[in-house]
Protein backbone atom coordinates (compact mmCIF):
# COMPACT_ATOMS: atom_id res chain seq x y z
CA UNK A 1 0.00 0.00 0.00
CA UNK A 2 1.29 3.42 -0.93
CA UNK A 3 0.09 6.39 1.13
CA UNK A 4 0.84 9.84 -0.18
CA UNK A 5 0.33 12.56 2.44
CA UNK A 6 0.32 16.31 1.68
CA UNK A 7 2.90 15.88 -1.05
CA UNK A 8 4.20 19.17 -2.42
CA UNK A 9 6.92 19.73 -4.97
CA UNK A 10 7.12 23.09 -6.71
CA UNK A 11 9.66 24.00 -9.36
CA UNK A 12 11.14 27.48 -9.81
CA UNK A 13 8.33 28.39 -12.24
CA UNK A 14 5.83 27.56 -9.44
CA UNK A 15 4.50 24.56 -11.35
CA UNK A 16 4.46 21.12 -9.80
CA UNK A 17 2.18 19.49 -7.24
CA UNK A 18 0.54 20.98 -4.17
CA UNK A 19 -0.57 19.09 -1.07
CA UNK A 20 -1.51 15.85 -2.80
CA UNK A 21 -2.90 13.10 -0.59
CA UNK A 22 -3.68 9.76 -2.18
CA UNK A 23 -3.81 6.09 -1.20
CA UNK A 24 -2.87 3.39 -3.68
CA UNK A 25 -3.91 -0.08 -2.64
CA UNK A 26 -1.96 -3.25 -3.47
CA UNK A 27 -3.01 -4.82 -6.76
CA UNK A 28 -4.74 -1.68 -7.96
CA UNK A 29 -4.34 -0.11 -11.41
CA UNK A 30 -4.49 3.61 -10.71
CA UNK A 31 -4.82 6.00 -13.60
CA UNK A 32 -3.62 9.58 -13.23
CA UNK A 33 -5.58 11.65 -15.67
CA UNK A 34 -4.77 15.26 -16.34
CA UNK A 35 -3.85 17.78 -19.00
CA UNK A 36 -0.23 18.45 -19.98
CA UNK A 37 1.68 20.20 -17.21
CA UNK A 38 -0.85 19.26 -14.53
CA UNK A 39 1.74 17.50 -12.34
CA UNK A 40 1.28 13.81 -13.25
CA UNK A 41 4.95 13.26 -14.06
CA UNK A 42 6.12 15.22 -11.01
CA UNK A 43 3.95 13.02 -8.78
CA UNK A 44 5.41 9.89 -10.38
CA UNK A 45 8.95 11.24 -10.09
CA UNK A 46 8.40 11.96 -6.40
CA UNK A 47 7.21 8.36 -5.94
CA UNK A 48 10.53 7.21 -7.41
CA UNK A 49 12.55 9.86 -5.57
CA UNK A 50 13.72 11.40 -8.85
CA UNK A 51 12.73 14.75 -7.33
CA UNK A 52 14.14 14.33 -3.83
CA UNK A 53 13.38 17.72 -2.28
CA UNK A 54 9.62 17.31 -1.87
CA UNK A 55 7.65 18.05 1.26
CA UNK A 56 5.04 15.73 2.72
CA UNK A 57 5.30 11.98 3.09
CA UNK A 58 5.26 8.95 0.86
CA UNK A 59 4.69 5.81 2.89
CA UNK A 60 5.20 2.46 1.17
CA UNK A 61 4.02 -0.57 3.18
CA UNK A 62 4.36 1.40 6.40
CA UNK A 63 7.85 2.75 5.73
CA UNK A 64 8.77 6.29 4.70
CA UNK A 65 10.17 6.30 1.17
CA UNK A 66 13.15 8.39 2.32
CA UNK A 67 14.14 5.69 4.84
CA UNK A 68 13.39 2.65 2.69
CA UNK A 69 14.26 3.92 -0.79
CA UNK A 70 16.54 1.04 -1.80
CA UNK A 71 13.97 -1.64 -0.94
CA UNK A 72 11.14 0.26 -2.63
CA UNK A 73 13.18 0.78 -5.82
CA UNK A 74 14.19 -2.90 -5.75
CA UNK A 75 10.55 -3.84 -6.34
CA UNK A 76 9.47 -0.96 -8.55
CA UNK A 77 9.71 -0.75 -12.33
CA UNK A 78 9.20 2.54 -14.11
CA UNK A 79 8.93 4.29 -17.42
CA UNK A 80 9.03 8.05 -16.89
CA UNK A 81 8.52 10.58 -19.69
CA UNK A 82 10.36 9.63 -22.88
CA UNK A 83 12.14 6.28 -22.65
CA UNK A 84 15.78 6.68 -21.60
CA UNK A 85 18.03 4.58 -23.79
CA UNK A 86 21.79 4.33 -24.17
CA UNK A 87 21.99 4.96 -27.91
CA UNK A 88 25.35 3.24 -28.40
CA UNK A 89 24.25 0.06 -26.68
CA UNK A 90 22.03 -2.72 -28.00
CA UNK A 91 18.50 -3.38 -26.75
CA UNK A 92 19.82 -6.32 -24.72
CA UNK A 93 22.63 -4.25 -23.16
CA UNK A 94 20.17 -1.47 -22.34
CA UNK A 95 18.07 -3.96 -20.41
CA UNK A 96 21.18 -5.28 -18.63
CA UNK A 97 21.69 -1.73 -17.34
CA UNK A 98 18.03 -1.37 -16.39
CA UNK A 99 17.99 -4.64 -14.39
CA UNK A 100 17.42 -3.97 -10.71
CA UNK A 101 18.93 -7.25 -9.54
CA UNK A 102 21.51 -9.63 -11.02
CA UNK A 103 18.84 -12.34 -11.46
CA UNK A 104 16.66 -9.95 -13.50
CA UNK A 105 19.15 -10.23 -16.37
CA UNK A 106 17.87 -13.79 -16.91
CA UNK A 107 14.44 -12.31 -17.63
CA UNK A 108 15.62 -10.09 -20.51
CA UNK A 109 14.80 -12.47 -23.38
CA UNK A 110 11.29 -12.99 -22.00
CA UNK A 111 10.48 -9.27 -21.74
CA UNK A 112 12.00 -8.57 -25.17
CA UNK A 113 9.65 -11.22 -26.54
CA UNK A 114 6.68 -9.64 -24.75
CA UNK A 115 7.30 -6.21 -26.29
CA UNK A 116 8.12 -7.72 -29.70
CA UNK A 117 11.77 -6.68 -29.83
CA UNK A 118 13.38 -10.13 -29.78
CA UNK A 119 14.62 -9.87 -33.36
CA UNK A 120 16.21 -6.49 -32.59
CA UNK A 121 17.92 -7.46 -29.35
CA UNK A 122 21.41 -7.05 -30.79
CA UNK A 123 20.70 -3.80 -32.62
CA UNK A 124 21.77 -0.44 -31.26
CA UNK A 125 18.92 1.35 -29.49
CA UNK A 126 20.00 4.60 -31.15
CA UNK A 127 18.70 3.22 -34.45
CA UNK A 128 15.25 2.50 -33.01
CA UNK A 129 12.07 4.40 -33.91
CA UNK A 130 10.16 6.25 -31.17
CA UNK A 131 7.71 3.35 -30.85
CA UNK A 132 10.52 0.80 -30.51
CA UNK A 133 12.23 2.94 -27.86
CA UNK A 134 8.91 3.14 -26.01
CA UNK A 135 8.58 -0.66 -26.14
CA UNK A 136 12.16 -0.97 -24.85
CA UNK A 137 11.25 1.40 -22.00
CA UNK A 138 8.22 -0.75 -21.16
CA UNK A 139 10.42 -3.87 -21.25
CA UNK A 140 12.78 -2.20 -18.75
CA UNK A 141 9.85 -1.34 -16.47
CA UNK A 142 8.42 -4.89 -16.39
CA UNK A 143 11.83 -6.61 -16.21
CA UNK A 144 11.96 -9.00 -13.28
CA UNK A 145 8.20 -8.62 -12.69
CA UNK A 146 8.31 -5.96 -9.96
CA UNK A 147 5.50 -5.52 -7.41
CA UNK A 148 4.87 -1.90 -8.39
CA UNK A 149 5.05 -0.55 -11.95
CA UNK A 150 4.93 3.19 -12.69
CA UNK A 151 4.18 4.03 -16.32
CA UNK A 152 4.10 7.62 -17.52
CA UNK A 153 2.00 7.86 -20.69
CA UNK A 154 3.04 4.33 -21.76
CA UNK A 155 1.11 4.30 -25.04
CA UNK A 156 2.98 7.31 -26.49
CA UNK A 157 4.35 6.44 -29.92
CA UNK A 158 2.79 2.97 -29.96
CA UNK A 159 0.66 1.70 -32.86
CA UNK A 160 -2.91 0.49 -32.21
CA UNK A 161 -1.93 -3.18 -32.08
CA UNK A 162 0.85 -2.50 -29.58
CA UNK A 163 -1.52 -0.43 -27.41
CA UNK A 164 -3.99 -3.33 -27.27
CA UNK A 165 -1.21 -5.83 -26.52
CA UNK A 166 0.20 -3.60 -23.76
CA UNK A 167 -3.24 -3.23 -22.20
CA UNK A 168 -3.72 -7.01 -22.21
CA UNK A 169 -0.28 -7.54 -20.70
CA UNK A 170 -0.92 -5.00 -17.92
CA UNK A 171 -4.19 -6.73 -17.06
CA UNK A 172 -2.48 -10.14 -17.15
CA UNK A 173 0.31 -9.03 -14.80
CA UNK A 174 -2.20 -7.41 -12.46
CA UNK A 175 -4.45 -10.49 -12.43
CA UNK A 176 -1.73 -13.15 -12.13
CA UNK A 177 0.88 -11.41 -9.98
CA UNK A 178 -1.19 -8.79 -8.19
CA UNK A 179 1.13 -6.09 -9.57
CA UNK A 180 0.18 -2.55 -8.58
CA UNK A 181 0.19 -0.13 -11.51
CA UNK A 182 0.29 3.65 -11.50
CA UNK A 183 -0.33 4.83 -15.03
CA UNK A 184 -0.61 8.39 -16.25
CA UNK A 185 -2.23 9.65 -19.39
CA UNK A 186 -4.14 12.53 -20.87
CA UNK A 187 -6.48 10.43 -22.98
CA UNK A 188 -9.56 9.58 -20.90
CA UNK A 189 -10.65 6.57 -22.94
CA UNK A 190 -7.25 4.96 -22.49
CA UNK A 191 -7.37 5.32 -18.70
CA UNK A 192 -10.93 3.96 -18.74
CA UNK A 193 -9.82 0.77 -20.51
CA UNK A 194 -6.58 0.30 -18.57
CA UNK A 195 -7.34 1.17 -14.95
CA UNK A 196 -9.48 0.13 -12.02
CA UNK A 197 -9.43 3.60 -10.44
CA UNK A 198 -8.80 7.09 -11.76
CA UNK A 199 -7.55 10.24 -10.09
CA UNK A 200 -7.91 13.54 -11.93
CA UNK A 201 -4.96 15.84 -11.41
CA UNK A 202 -5.33 19.47 -12.35
CA UNK A 203 -2.91 22.33 -11.74
CA UNK A 204 -0.95 20.24 -9.30
CA UNK A 205 -3.91 19.06 -7.20
CA UNK A 206 -6.06 15.93 -7.12
CA UNK A 207 -9.58 17.12 -7.89
CA UNK A 208 -11.28 13.72 -8.15
CA UNK A 209 -10.49 10.16 -7.20
CA UNK A 210 -12.99 7.37 -7.93
CA UNK A 211 -13.17 3.79 -9.10
CA UNK A 212 -13.77 3.38 -12.84
CA UNK A 213 -16.89 1.34 -12.04
CA UNK A 214 -18.37 4.19 -10.01
CA UNK A 215 -17.37 6.82 -12.57
CA UNK A 216 -19.09 4.91 -15.37
CA UNK A 217 -22.20 4.46 -13.26
CA UNK A 218 -22.45 8.25 -12.77
CA UNK A 219 -21.20 9.56 -16.13
CA UNK A 220 -21.64 8.32 -19.70
CA UNK A 221 -17.90 8.14 -20.21
CA UNK A 222 -14.55 8.83 -18.58
CA UNK A 223 -14.19 11.85 -20.84
CA UNK A 224 -17.43 13.35 -19.49
CA UNK A 225 -16.28 12.72 -15.91
CA UNK A 226 -12.95 14.42 -16.57
CA UNK A 227 -14.48 17.46 -18.30
CA UNK A 228 -17.10 17.81 -15.59
CA UNK A 229 -14.51 17.76 -12.79
CA UNK A 230 -12.18 20.19 -14.58
CA UNK A 231 -15.02 22.62 -15.33
CA UNK A 232 -16.25 22.34 -11.74
CA UNK A 233 -12.76 23.20 -10.58
CA UNK A 234 -12.40 26.12 -12.96
CA UNK A 235 -15.70 27.49 -11.67
CA UNK A 236 -14.48 27.25 -8.09
CA UNK A 237 -11.19 29.16 -8.73
Amino acid at each position, binding site marked *: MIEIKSLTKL*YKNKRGIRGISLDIRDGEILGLLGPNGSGKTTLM*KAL*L*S*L*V*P*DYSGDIIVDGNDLRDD*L*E*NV*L*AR*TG*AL*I*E*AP*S*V*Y*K*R*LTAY*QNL*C*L*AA*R*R*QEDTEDIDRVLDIVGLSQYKNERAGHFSLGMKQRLGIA*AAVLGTPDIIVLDEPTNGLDIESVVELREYIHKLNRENGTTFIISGHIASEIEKLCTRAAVIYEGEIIANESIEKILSLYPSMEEFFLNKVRERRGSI
Partner: protein
Amino acid sequence: MSRFTFAYKKECFKLLHRKKYIVLVILGILVSIVRYGGTALLARLSEDTIKLTSRLSLEMLPFAVEILAPTVILFAVCDLFATELSNDTMKVSLLQPVSRFKLLTAKAAAALTAGAASLIVMFVVNLIIQIVAGNGFSGMGAAFAAYLIDIVPLVGIVFLGITVNLLIGAPAGAAICSIAVYAAMKYLGLYTSAANTLLFTAAAKLHQMLLGHTLPFGALMCRLGILFGSILILYSVSYIIFDKKNI
Protein backbone atom coordinates in the same frame (compact mmCIF):
# COMPACT_ATOMS: atom_id res chain seq x y z
CA MET B 1 26.27 -9.73 -5.17
CA SER B 2 25.55 -6.57 -3.19
CA ARG B 3 23.50 -3.80 -4.76
CA PHE B 4 26.51 -1.48 -4.65
CA THR B 5 28.73 -3.99 -6.48
CA PHE B 6 26.01 -4.53 -9.09
CA ALA B 7 25.73 -0.75 -9.62
CA TYR B 8 29.53 -0.41 -9.82
CA LYS B 9 29.75 -3.19 -12.43
CA LYS B 10 27.12 -1.43 -14.53
CA GLU B 11 29.02 1.86 -14.45
CA CYS B 12 32.20 0.03 -15.52
CA PHE B 13 30.19 -1.68 -18.28
CA LYS B 14 29.13 1.75 -19.63
CA LEU B 15 32.76 2.90 -19.76
CA LEU B 16 33.97 -0.32 -21.36
CA HIS B 17 31.74 0.35 -24.33
CA ARG B 18 33.34 3.71 -25.12
CA LYS B 19 36.24 3.47 -27.57
CA LYS B 20 37.80 6.78 -26.54
CA TYR B 21 39.46 5.24 -23.48
CA ILE B 22 41.23 2.64 -25.64
CA VAL B 23 42.32 5.46 -27.98
CA LEU B 24 43.66 7.49 -25.03
CA VAL B 25 45.65 4.53 -23.71
CA ILE B 26 47.02 3.79 -27.20
CA LEU B 27 48.13 7.44 -27.40
CA GLY B 28 49.83 7.02 -24.02
CA ILE B 29 51.62 3.90 -25.28
CA LEU B 30 52.72 5.78 -28.41
CA VAL B 31 54.19 8.53 -26.21
CA SER B 32 56.23 5.87 -24.38
CA ILE B 33 57.41 4.33 -27.64
CA VAL B 34 58.36 7.74 -29.06
CA ARG B 35 60.13 8.56 -25.80
CA TYR B 36 62.11 5.33 -25.98
CA GLY B 37 62.71 5.56 -29.76
CA GLY B 38 63.85 9.18 -29.47
CA THR B 39 66.33 8.38 -26.74
CA ALA B 40 67.60 5.35 -28.63
CA LEU B 41 68.14 7.50 -31.70
CA LEU B 42 69.95 10.17 -29.65
CA ALA B 43 72.14 7.48 -28.07
CA ARG B 44 73.12 6.18 -31.49
CA LEU B 45 73.73 9.66 -32.95
CA SER B 46 75.77 10.77 -29.93
CA GLU B 47 77.72 7.51 -29.98
CA ASP B 48 76.44 6.66 -26.48
CA THR B 49 77.28 10.04 -24.90
CA ILE B 50 73.55 10.20 -24.16
CA LYS B 51 72.61 6.86 -22.64
CA LEU B 52 69.35 4.94 -22.72
CA THR B 53 67.46 5.04 -19.47
CA SER B 54 67.29 1.83 -17.51
CA ARG B 55 64.08 2.76 -15.63
CA LEU B 56 61.61 3.83 -18.28
CA SER B 57 58.57 2.93 -16.11
CA LEU B 58 59.59 5.46 -13.46
CA GLU B 59 60.54 8.09 -16.04
CA MET B 60 57.15 7.84 -17.72
CA LEU B 61 55.26 7.95 -14.40
CA PRO B 62 54.79 11.77 -14.28
CA PHE B 63 53.21 11.69 -17.75
CA ALA B 64 50.96 8.80 -16.73
CA VAL B 65 49.77 10.28 -13.41
CA GLU B 66 49.61 13.94 -14.33
CA ILE B 67 48.33 13.82 -17.90
CA LEU B 68 47.05 10.45 -19.10
CA ALA B 69 45.17 9.11 -16.05
CA PRO B 70 43.53 12.51 -15.20
CA THR B 71 42.37 12.84 -18.83
CA VAL B 72 40.89 9.33 -18.76
CA ILE B 73 39.23 10.07 -15.41
CA LEU B 74 37.77 13.43 -16.46
CA PHE B 75 36.34 11.92 -19.66
CA ALA B 76 34.93 8.98 -17.68
CA VAL B 77 33.31 11.32 -15.16
CA CYS B 78 31.84 13.33 -18.03
CA ASP B 79 30.34 10.16 -19.55
CA LEU B 80 28.87 9.04 -16.24
CA PHE B 81 27.47 12.41 -15.15
CA ALA B 82 27.08 15.27 -17.65
CA THR B 83 26.36 12.98 -20.63
CA GLU B 84 23.83 10.97 -18.59
CA LEU B 85 22.13 14.14 -17.40
CA SER B 86 22.05 15.52 -20.92
CA ASN B 87 20.82 12.29 -22.57
CA ASP B 88 18.26 11.71 -19.80
CA THR B 89 19.78 8.30 -19.00
CA MET B 90 20.58 9.36 -15.42
CA LYS B 91 17.02 8.16 -14.67
CA VAL B 92 18.11 4.61 -15.49
CA SER B 93 20.89 4.90 -12.91
CA LEU B 94 18.65 6.52 -10.30
CA LEU B 95 15.97 3.84 -10.67
CA GLN B 96 18.49 1.27 -9.46
CA PRO B 97 17.87 0.09 -5.90
CA VAL B 98 20.78 2.02 -4.44
CA SER B 99 20.80 5.32 -2.55
CA ARG B 100 22.18 8.39 -4.30
CA PHE B 101 25.23 8.22 -2.04
CA LYS B 102 26.00 4.68 -3.16
CA LEU B 103 25.30 5.54 -6.80
CA LEU B 104 27.67 8.53 -6.64
CA THR B 105 30.32 6.32 -5.04
CA ALA B 106 29.79 3.56 -7.62
CA LYS B 107 30.19 6.05 -10.47
CA ALA B 108 33.27 7.60 -8.85
CA ALA B 109 34.77 4.14 -8.29
CA ALA B 110 34.17 3.25 -11.96
CA ALA B 111 35.88 6.47 -13.13
CA LEU B 112 38.80 5.80 -10.77
CA THR B 113 39.03 2.23 -12.07
CA ALA B 114 39.34 3.59 -15.62
CA GLY B 115 42.16 5.93 -14.53
CA ALA B 116 43.92 3.22 -12.50
CA ALA B 117 43.62 0.76 -15.41
CA SER B 118 45.31 3.27 -17.73
CA LEU B 119 48.16 3.59 -15.20
CA ILE B 120 48.61 -0.17 -14.93
CA VAL B 121 48.63 -0.55 -18.73
CA MET B 122 51.28 2.19 -18.94
CA PHE B 123 53.36 0.43 -16.29
CA VAL B 124 53.20 -2.90 -18.13
CA VAL B 125 53.99 -1.33 -21.53
CA ASN B 126 56.93 0.64 -20.14
CA LEU B 127 58.23 -2.45 -18.40
CA ILE B 128 58.04 -4.41 -21.66
CA ILE B 129 59.91 -1.63 -23.50
CA GLN B 130 62.48 -1.61 -20.70
CA ILE B 131 62.99 -5.37 -21.00
CA VAL B 132 63.14 -5.23 -24.80
CA ALA B 133 65.78 -2.46 -24.49
CA GLY B 134 67.88 -4.90 -22.51
CA ASN B 135 67.53 -3.21 -19.13
CA GLY B 136 65.77 -6.16 -17.52
CA PHE B 137 63.56 -5.70 -14.48
CA SER B 138 65.66 -2.89 -13.01
CA GLY B 139 63.67 -1.02 -10.33
CA MET B 140 60.47 -2.85 -11.22
CA GLY B 141 59.29 -3.27 -7.61
CA ALA B 142 59.76 0.40 -6.74
CA ALA B 143 58.15 1.48 -9.99
CA PHE B 144 55.10 -0.72 -9.40
CA ALA B 145 54.76 0.60 -5.84
CA ALA B 146 54.99 4.17 -7.18
CA TYR B 147 52.25 3.52 -9.74
CA LEU B 148 50.01 2.04 -7.04
CA ILE B 149 50.64 4.90 -4.58
CA ASP B 150 49.93 7.49 -7.25
CA ILE B 151 46.42 6.14 -7.73
CA VAL B 152 45.42 7.76 -4.39
CA PRO B 153 45.61 11.43 -5.54
CA LEU B 154 43.50 10.50 -8.57
CA VAL B 155 40.51 10.16 -6.20
CA GLY B 156 40.62 13.95 -5.76
CA ILE B 157 40.53 14.45 -9.52
CA VAL B 158 37.49 12.13 -9.75
CA PHE B 159 35.49 14.23 -7.27
CA LEU B 160 36.75 17.51 -8.74
CA GLY B 161 35.44 16.30 -12.11
CA ILE B 162 32.11 15.19 -10.60
CA THR B 163 31.57 18.57 -8.90
CA VAL B 164 32.27 20.46 -12.14
CA ASN B 165 30.04 18.09 -14.13
CA LEU B 166 27.12 18.46 -11.75
CA LEU B 167 27.46 22.25 -11.78
CA ILE B 168 27.84 22.61 -15.56
CA GLY B 169 25.50 19.88 -16.81
CA ALA B 170 26.24 20.07 -20.56
CA PRO B 171 28.75 17.35 -21.58
CA ALA B 172 31.07 19.42 -23.80
CA GLY B 173 31.13 22.34 -21.36
CA ALA B 174 31.68 20.01 -18.40
CA ALA B 175 34.58 18.20 -20.10
CA ILE B 176 36.29 21.45 -21.12
CA CYS B 177 35.67 23.10 -17.74
CA SER B 178 36.91 20.16 -15.68
CA ILE B 179 40.09 19.87 -17.76
CA ALA B 180 40.57 23.67 -17.56
CA VAL B 181 40.11 23.68 -13.74
CA TYR B 182 42.53 20.77 -13.38
CA ALA B 183 45.11 22.43 -15.67
CA ALA B 184 44.72 25.76 -13.82
CA MET B 185 45.32 24.02 -10.49
CA LYS B 186 48.42 22.30 -11.84
CA TYR B 187 49.88 25.49 -13.30
CA LEU B 188 49.00 27.54 -10.23
CA GLY B 189 50.85 24.95 -8.17
CA LEU B 190 53.84 25.06 -10.48
CA TYR B 191 54.23 28.84 -10.50
CA THR B 192 53.10 29.81 -6.99
CA SER B 193 54.71 28.10 -4.04
CA ALA B 194 51.88 29.17 -1.70
CA ALA B 195 49.31 27.56 -3.98
CA ASN B 196 51.50 24.51 -4.29
CA THR B 197 51.20 23.83 -0.58
CA LEU B 198 47.43 24.30 -0.60
CA LEU B 199 46.32 22.46 -3.74
CA PHE B 200 45.78 18.71 -3.66
CA THR B 201 46.99 18.46 -7.27
CA ALA B 202 50.51 19.18 -5.98
CA ALA B 203 50.42 15.72 -4.39
CA ALA B 204 49.93 13.96 -7.73
CA LYS B 205 53.34 12.30 -7.44
CA LEU B 206 52.58 11.00 -3.98
CA HIS B 207 55.19 8.25 -4.29
CA GLN B 208 57.95 10.89 -4.18
CA MET B 209 56.77 11.94 -0.72
CA LEU B 210 56.31 8.44 0.61
CA LEU B 211 59.13 6.53 -1.12
CA GLY B 212 61.69 9.30 -1.57
CA HIS B 213 61.64 10.60 2.04
CA THR B 214 62.30 14.11 0.75
CA LEU B 215 59.94 15.85 3.17
CA PRO B 216 60.21 16.15 6.97
CA PHE B 217 57.48 14.26 8.81
CA GLY B 218 55.47 17.42 9.71
CA ALA B 219 55.46 18.67 6.13
CA LEU B 220 54.55 15.22 4.86
CA MET B 221 51.59 15.02 7.23
CA CYS B 222 50.54 18.51 6.14
CA ARG B 223 50.61 17.47 2.45
CA LEU B 224 48.69 14.28 3.17
CA GLY B 225 46.19 16.26 5.25
CA ILE B 226 45.59 18.64 2.34
CA LEU B 227 45.20 15.73 -0.07
CA PHE B 228 42.75 13.73 2.03
CA GLY B 229 40.97 16.87 3.26
CA SER B 230 40.45 18.04 -0.33
CA ILE B 231 39.13 14.62 -1.32
CA LEU B 232 36.69 14.68 1.61
CA ILE B 233 35.50 18.21 0.81
CA LEU B 234 35.02 17.47 -2.91
CA TYR B 235 33.26 14.17 -2.09
CA SER B 236 30.88 15.99 0.26
CA VAL B 237 30.21 18.86 -2.15
CA SER B 238 29.54 16.53 -5.07
CA TYR B 239 27.23 14.42 -2.89
CA ILE B 240 25.26 17.46 -1.69
CA ILE B 241 24.73 18.63 -5.28
CA PHE B 242 23.91 15.13 -6.56
CA ASP B 243 21.51 14.40 -3.72
CA LYS B 244 19.46 17.54 -4.43
CA LYS B 245 19.43 17.13 -8.20
CA ASN B 246 15.98 16.95 -9.78
CA ILE B 247 15.98 14.49 -12.66
